[in-house]
């Protein structure tokens, strides 16, 4: 989902608020990802086994350009995230390290809090799904995935989740494999 960056102008009035998530130190993950992608491109392009001559613009020109974009944007984004924001930081400490840290502290309690256990459960559910798919087959793996995500979103009726997941996975198997012939992994069931 695209989210709008809240307008700075609107925030100038009223008492200072905690820094929102996208300006917190955690947001530095994004420039970090860009740097990693840039390095990925540089390494990949430098070691690329170029086929043929490729003409004036070979297969390496665009990667170099995009790598440069990645690094430049990462720097600008990091500056944008870290730069002092009087509207969020306490007025007297504007720009100082301490002020930034304290705003980080208050952000922990703010509405942007990330429910880490829930995210872990959801991601873990997908990881397990991928790992067991070839062995358990589509029906059971998808049931597990469904249950994991439902629990991550706060559902505590474990049995109902399992049953609902089993129903959905079965319907998909019947309709798409049975009626339309898309192949889904059968897992150990296929051994019979």
């Amino acid at each position, binding site marked *: 989902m695209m989210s709008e960056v809240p307008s700075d102008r609107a925030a100038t009035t009223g008492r200072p608020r905690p820094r929102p998530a996208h300006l917190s130190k955690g947001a530095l*993950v994004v420039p970090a990802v860009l740097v990693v992608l840039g390095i990925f491109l540089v390494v990949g392009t430098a070691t690329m086994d170029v086929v043929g001559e490729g003409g004036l613009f070979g297969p390496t020109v665009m990667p170099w350009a995009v790598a440069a974009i990645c690094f430049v*944007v990462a720097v600008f984004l990091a500056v944008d995230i870290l730069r002092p924001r009087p509207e969020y930081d306490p007025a007297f400490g504007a720009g100082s390290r301490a002020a930034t840290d304290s705003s980080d502290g208050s952000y922990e309690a703010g509405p942007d809090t990330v429910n880490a256990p829930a995210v872990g459960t959801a991601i873990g559910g997908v*990881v397990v799904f991928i790992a067991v798919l070839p062995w358990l087959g589509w029906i059971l793996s998808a049931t597990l995935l469904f249950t994991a995500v439902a629990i991550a979103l*706060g*559902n505590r009726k474990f049995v109902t989740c399992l049953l609902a997941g089993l129903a959905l*996975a079965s319907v998909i198997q019947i309709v798409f494999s049975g009626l339309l012939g898309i192949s889904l992994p059968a897992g150990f069931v296929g051994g019979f």
Partner: protein
Amino acid sequence: MEQLSNLIGGFGDILSPSALLFVLIGALLGTAVGVLPGLGSAMAVALLLPLTFVLEPTNALIMFTGIYFGGLFGDSISGILMNTPGNSTAIASAFEGYRMAQSGRAAQALATAAIGAFIGGTVASVLVVFFAPTLAELATGFGPAEFFALAVLAFIAISAVVTDSAVRGLAALAIGLVLAMIGIDQPTGTARFSFGSSALLDGIPIVVITVSLLALGEVFHQAAKASGSGTQDTVLPSGRPWLSGSEFRAALPAWLRGTGYGLPFGVIPAGGAEVPTFLSYGTERRLDRRRAKPMFGRGAIQGVAGPEAAGNATAGTAMGALLALGLPTSATAALLLAAFQQYGLQPGPLLLERSGDIVWPLLAGFFLAMVVLLILNLPFAPLWAQLLRVPKSYLYAGIAVFASFGVYAAGASIIDLVIMLVIGVLGLAMRLYDIPIAPVLIAVILGPLAEYSLRDAMANSENDPAVLVSSPITIGLYVLLLAGLGFAAWRRVAERRRADV
């Protein structure tokens, strides 16, 4: 008006209870496959092709048009309800459509999409009936230089409006460009960034990127926001089922503008239907900013109406290009070509002379399919919207299952699922830290088009840069681009002045 009488003759052939039944079955099946992420209209046609083999030609072809257009109507349904577009052509309408659904206007969004698809598809079909040969002419004016100009124009036009923070938009754009570059380089066959893995040789399919970023990223984000109290809250009540008069009036111009964008793109074999849907989205958003009460970002009806009409108009004229030139410009079209040949139809310039008796019923079938789909989709809109009454935990669990299914079914590959997970986590990070997602998808679609067409244009003209501005079409596109940039700059200055006063 020879075409008109032929078309009426065609209607005469197909307006029978059995034909209506077949178009209905086709429409339902097509919609069902279209709804699922990852199973686009090509897959729908491929899967259902054998069904048509056992029927007699007219019934088979008419069922076929039902499947084809059904897939196009269906792909926006899942985008609007679950932010999981069934196909890349439904990405643009999912942005605002999903927001409308989140604010209790799911039924209206679905109705808007259905009417948009109807208008776009119908206008395109009319054009195909009367001007198919002329449309085909248009396509011959395009070469790599023109495609490059088009890609640049689309990049600038869309990127400028989809995000408010330039640096954040660029960050997203860069991520998309990197993802799009993985895989075999088309002009030379060089493997780029696959690092020896054969699974990466063909690149990351767009559908995997779309489903991961939009659907799985959203599932993770919902988990991140979950309160943990275990409440069984639903997304929201589905609200009033029908479009109000004022909503209809708001959507109407967007439908028409979208159709206008879509029509020419069907015959141009580049960029597919994604480019016009995004261009339409960009235009609607820009127009929206000038309104007293901008709605974009909160579920703007125009944001659904425009792209949806554009997507279907493209599909309609693409069918025209296929019939008139025999050019399968997409995988779906290639499958349709196979189906036509099954019945002795060889699409191409000689089609109408050779097999008019089968083509006119087919063309009449387009209109029939469109009407049937509209009738099917309007009453179903509130029904589909009921899906949002399902408790959130079950809804998103279901989305995760459907997303995984779609990604797996498209390529039967576990690696695709791993890529889905990685990009899904990236989607979560982007949501948490307010990096817009649309530019990623724009870059994935337009990046390769821009790169390959630039390289082809240069290489095929002995590296003479003049080739890039050598035709009226290229010059026209660049003039449009400069005018747009100039206008935007002027407006920004004007706005700042106003704000200062």
